[in-house]
């Protein structure tokens, strides 16, 4: 089953893939496992937009609780130690899941796609699947982008046009 996970995550060599896909097609138990993994991935994917808010809201709730047994500092540290790595792990699983196949339909259809070695040898996950939200008004981030662009070869070639990112009216800093 570990191999099935690796297959999904695109971590296997192409010759191994072929072998495990043949195993999948023969063993109903493994095939069920394959389907379950895809279901988990899809659920995680559906949750993608809310994962950060979840951590934030749990954190806010905990802070709102009266502090009886421990000072707040400890609680914050606890959240950082437990909740954030958990969120990171969830994000990691999602990235891993996206490695496998771009299809939104879980199931056997993906097996056929995986027989093509090309996506498996790709070094990076399917980045298009990760959709960041537009940054909210944040003077600090704008300042960081301006500082960053000093050292970016891309910005050096774009010249002053790079500044447009920090002026863009819909998702840039409102200087408030």
């Amino acid at each position, binding site marked *: 089953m570990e191999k099935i996970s690796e297959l999904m995550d695109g971590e296997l060599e192409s010759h191994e893939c072929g072998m495990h896909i043949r195993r999948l097609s023969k063993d109903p138990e493994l095939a069920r496992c394959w389907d379950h993994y895809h279901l988990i991935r899809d659920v995680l994917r559906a949750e993608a937009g809310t994962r950060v808010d979840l951590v934030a809201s749990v954190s806010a709730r905990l802070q709102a609780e009266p502090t009886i047994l421990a000072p707040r500092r400890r609680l914050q540290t606890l959240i950082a130690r437990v909740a954030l790595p958990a969120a990171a792990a969830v994000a990691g699983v999602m990235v891993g899941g996206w490695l496998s196949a771009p299809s939104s339909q879980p199931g056997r259809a993906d097996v056929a796609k995986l027989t093509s070695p090309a996506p498996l040898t790709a070094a990076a996950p399917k980045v298009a699947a990760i959709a960041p939200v537009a940054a909210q008004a944040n003077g600090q*981030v704008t300042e960081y982008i301006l500082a960053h662009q000093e050292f970016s070869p891309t910005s050096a070639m774009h*010249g*002053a046009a790079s500044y447009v990112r920090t002026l863009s009216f819909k998702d840039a800093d409102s*200087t408030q």
Partner: protein
Amino acid sequence: MRRAHVVLVPGLVLLQFCAGVVLAESLEQSDPLAWLERIARAARQLNYSGTFVYQHGDQVETSRITHYFDRTGEYEKLETLDGPKREIIRNNNEILTYDAEHRVVKREKRTPRRNFPALLPDQLASLTENYNLRKGEHERIAGYDAQALILQPRDGFRYGHKLWAEVTTGLLLKARMVDENDHVVEQFVFTQLIIGSGVTRESTRPSFATGDWRREPAGPDSSEPGDTGWTVKSQPVGFKKVMEMKRFKTGAQSPVAHLVYSDGLAAVSVFIEPLPTKRKFQEGLTHQGAVNIYTRPLPDQLVTVLGEAPAVTVMQMANSVSFKGQ
């Protein structure tokens, strides 16, 4: 000259020798790497003014840009033509952001770039390791003849780029960033442009009378290159550290650590500061245009990683930030 080279037959070796000097020059210009250097040089040293269209996601915005260069330095003005009136003025190492809607002018001090050339020679070397660089077709853009350059990334940790440079000056007329699936992440293109004469220092001055505007002296007051004690343990292959510094801010007790990693074309910055207690911050993955931003709080620190690179790249770097001690 290239065409001339093509028609030369082996028998005309002597003629080839005679034309050696001219050929060497044209070969240099035809080298895609030399083109990138020309583009970076042109962006800093030419006088130009024009209107360009900026596109990212499903947004399209028009802005006007003016760049003036003389012995006293570089002056730039970028003004939005759509939406709220905003301008960025750069006078050498000072960046002023004007927001007419809120009547605010913000000042940022830039790190002097004098000691940091636009494209470092060793960056150009790593660029060829991470991108397949080739010349494309000739195209007409904003009335100018342009040479296209294609930079195809070797993996999904960086975006693909297509650049169109004006043939005689090297000025970038159009630039496009694409993701792994060839979807446009960001694009800008001049629709009207004047290069050279007619552009004056005056045209880089702000358009507003700002006497009663609020002034925000923000930004780092100074920066100091050197070891910060922080490192990124597992950055994507091809990204090397090109700069490390401490940024000192007005009113802040501790400096902000700033590390820059580059693959020769894309750059990713890592900022580490004490966890803010008053200021709100947006955790997780966000973006401004093609710049992806990943904000990750540690127990006592806030890590902000950003760059014109795919989300997976900034996330991987943010997740491997660690303190190695000073």
